[in-house]
């Protein structure tokens, strides 16, 4: 018998949530066959079986939290590796689907099961099928739905906008109950924690004409080098330079130890929307990267976040965070600090607006900026200065060149 315990996956992770089991008692497992999906801080990891054998017992039920050292599963080892095992019920690359359904992974499921998955907001490709040839059965979908927040659909479809003109007929106040699980639970906990911080948000608008122009000129060159140049690398560059000027914005507050920790490195967190919530991958030593390298790193991390494949170091240790809600079309927002950081920058949508320039009304592309600070450590005046300096860098991005190391 092999008792498999939750391993120490590093970086201060003490517990993990058991998302779902990919094996069941009595099932033969091969060595290295994926057994279970665990959710650590913000990443989902698949744990392979350390041995070949038969599953004797599953100790940690799906949906529960397991601590490092807890026994997750008991496997009865077989002498030698068993003969051809069943295809692991994980999503594997398959040849293209049929007919006009186009290339992609074919998921075997009855039309009624597809409808059920659609109604529950489940991506069938994520559901392990227990039927013949890995066919997904109705209970597989229901089981999966009970383990995940129901709005999780890794490929979000453009939902038709709501709001028909007519009023809702009475008697239709349906309430569906869902367990708070997975990433959503994690976000809820973090936000509750963040809300302990006394927030102050200051706003400004940058004249983004030069920035827009610069990005437009550099984008084709970046593309030739295989990199899509967005505004984010500029935001990061400007933020890092400003953080160097205002070290208390790149700090944390240790209330228990009555200390202020001034971090002399610049790990920039980027808030990334993923299908079932929000992740904050981290660009380590952002000050050492040039714009192209930043752009490539942003793209790489955002993609990994969407696939939920970020490693622990890529998800922790940030010293300052930027959230670009403009990329989702929002003009303004009040960002919430990502503890233990003490400040966060929000960038809105660049939009042509009439502004007064030298007594004349001109149309300029304006970039809304919002900076939230931890008022325990920072004050409104400092926040305003920080934002003003950041604004100068974004309004005249050529300044960034002056400050190159």
């Amino acid at each position: 018998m092999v008792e498999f315990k939750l391993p120490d996956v590093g970086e201060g992770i003490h517990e993990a949530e058991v998302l779902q089991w990919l094996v069941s008692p009595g099932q033969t497992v091969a060595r290295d066959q994926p057994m279970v999906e665990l959710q650590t801080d913000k990443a989902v990891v698949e744990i392979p079986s350390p041995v070949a054998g038969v599953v004797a017992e599953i100790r940690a039920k799906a949906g529960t939290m397991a601590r490092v050292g807890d026994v997750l599963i008991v496997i009865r080892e077989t002498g030698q590796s068993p003969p051809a095992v069943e295809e692991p019920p994980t999503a594997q690359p398959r040849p293209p689907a049929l007919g006009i359904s186009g290339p992609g992974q074919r998921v075997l499921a009855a039309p009624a099961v597809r409808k059920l998955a659609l109604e529950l907001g489940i991506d069938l490709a994520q559901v392990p099928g227990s039927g013949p040839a890995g066919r997904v059965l109705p209970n597989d979908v229901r089981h999966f739905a009970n383990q995940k927040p129901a709005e999780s659909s890794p490929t979000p479809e453009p939902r038709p906008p709501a709001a028909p003109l007519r009023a809702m007929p009475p008697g239709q106040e349906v309430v569906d109950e869902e367990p708070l699980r997975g990433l959503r639970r994690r976000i809820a906990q973090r936000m509750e924690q963040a809300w302990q911080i006394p927030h102050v948000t200051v706003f400004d608008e940058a004249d983004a004409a030069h920035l827009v122009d610069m990005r437009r000129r550099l984008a084709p060159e970046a593309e030739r080098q295989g990199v899509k140049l967005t505004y984010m690398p500029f935001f990061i560059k400007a933020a890092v330079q400003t953080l160097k000027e205002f070290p208390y914005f790149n700090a944390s507050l240790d209330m228990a130890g009555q200390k202020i920790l001034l971090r002399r490195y610049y790990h920039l967190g980027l808030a990334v929307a993923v299908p079932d919530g929000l992740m904050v991958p981290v660009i380590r030593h952002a000050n050492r990267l040039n714009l192209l390298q930043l752009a490539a790193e942003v793209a790489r991390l955002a993609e990994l976040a969407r696939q939920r494949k970020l490693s622990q170091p890529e998800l922790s240790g940030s010293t300052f965070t930027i959230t670009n809600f403009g990329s989702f079309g929002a003009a303004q927002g009040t960002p919430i600090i990502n503890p233990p950081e003490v400040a966060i920058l929000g960038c809105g949508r660049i939009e042509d607006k009439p502004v007064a320039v030298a007594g004349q009304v001109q149309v300029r592309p304006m970039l809304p900026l919002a900076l939230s600070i931890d008022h325990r450590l920072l004050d409104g005046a400092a926040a305003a200065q920080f934002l003003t300096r950041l604004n100068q860098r974004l309004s005249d991005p050529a300044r960034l060149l002056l400050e190159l190391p």
Partner: protein
Amino acid sequence: MVVGDLATAVDVAVLGAGPGGYVAAIRAAQLGKEVVLIDPHPPGGTCLHQGCIPAKALLTAAGHAAALADMPAMGIAVGEPFIDLPRMQQWKNGLVTRLAGGVQQLLAHHRIEVITGRAWFTGPQELQVEGEHGINRFLFDRAVIAVGGSPAPLPGLPFDNQRVLTPAQALVLTHLPGHIAIFGADTVAAELATIFIKLGAAVTLALPADQPLLAQFAPSAVRLVQARLKKLGVTIKKDMPNLAALDAPIVVISAGITPNTGNLGLNAAGVQTDKVGFVRVTPQMQTTNPAIYAVGDVTGGPPLAGLAIKQGKVAALALANQPARFEPQAVPWVAWTDPQIAAVGFTPAQAQAAGYQGVSGRFPLGANGRALTLNAADGFALVVAEKESGVLLGVTIVGRQAEALIGEVALALEMGATLTDLAETIHPHPSVSESFMEAAEAALGIAVHIK
């Protein structure tokens, strides 16, 4: 209805009352929406009035006429048939009228307002209709574009309804031409050739350059149809360089469709099309204007009514904010030829091209008792499956009633069935459907009725 500038507010406006449009209208009404359905023609669309239904009626009649040639061998002495084409057309029109009446009743039952007229968008959520009572304006919450397509003319050879006919115009002829040339390689062309040769006309089937006949089907299936057409007397000309070479008094052209989006005001509505004019849609059938959906031929997919119907249902659900997605696993294609070809999923060659390691099994109808008693031994069933898992990838059936038989395997493919599922299912005996079971067994290496 108010004539003039006052606009009527509706939940859903459906433009086009073909199978995609009227089904979308009914499903939306079932979901509690107030719906108007707008079309210059009576509900039913091209399929019911000018296309599938009339063609199938004439195929049946012509098929009976041709089958008389086989009667003497069965001990039935018959004389030379006399084809009364006007009478045949009357019979066909009677069917169409009856079906159209049924659609009208369904629409009335769901309290859908049917407006006869031509509609065009004047804004993102506004349209006008020019009908028998003048011009009306509608403000809609959601709209569905289901205006379909029209036969594409060949360059320099416009349809004149005299010598150059659309397929629909050919289907209403009341005088059988001595010689008719059909230009095209699709199912429409093949079916028209079948109808007219069986009614007694001389038929030339001219295949456009580089277009083999019925290219979407397995070549072995098409060979049977081609052989039968030739045996019936059809002259098949391949790679027609130009139509001047066709000396027939009547030429029918079936060269695809163009979308009916020309005068629809799509710019005003913010609905984008591709270069040809087909409307771009998401898997929810949503266009670039989130309030407007599009279904059927106008979206540029294969021009199959079955697809339009499914898309209409998806659009209705989506516009009512219900989860829906157009993601067919299996699309059945049928050529109502002689013998019929019906196929779903991949042919063996297509499966291989898509990257599958396939295994296939074939069962000839000559070894099927029921096919012989139907006097229809021409044909076969062909299955292809993924080699390792046995999961079905596609099925083709050639033979009598292939159209009816394909439903079984379409369901099998949708369900993700395996060769074993098909082989283990009890099939009635004797029946042509047994050939699926036998073909699956052949793929598994255990067929009983073939060596």
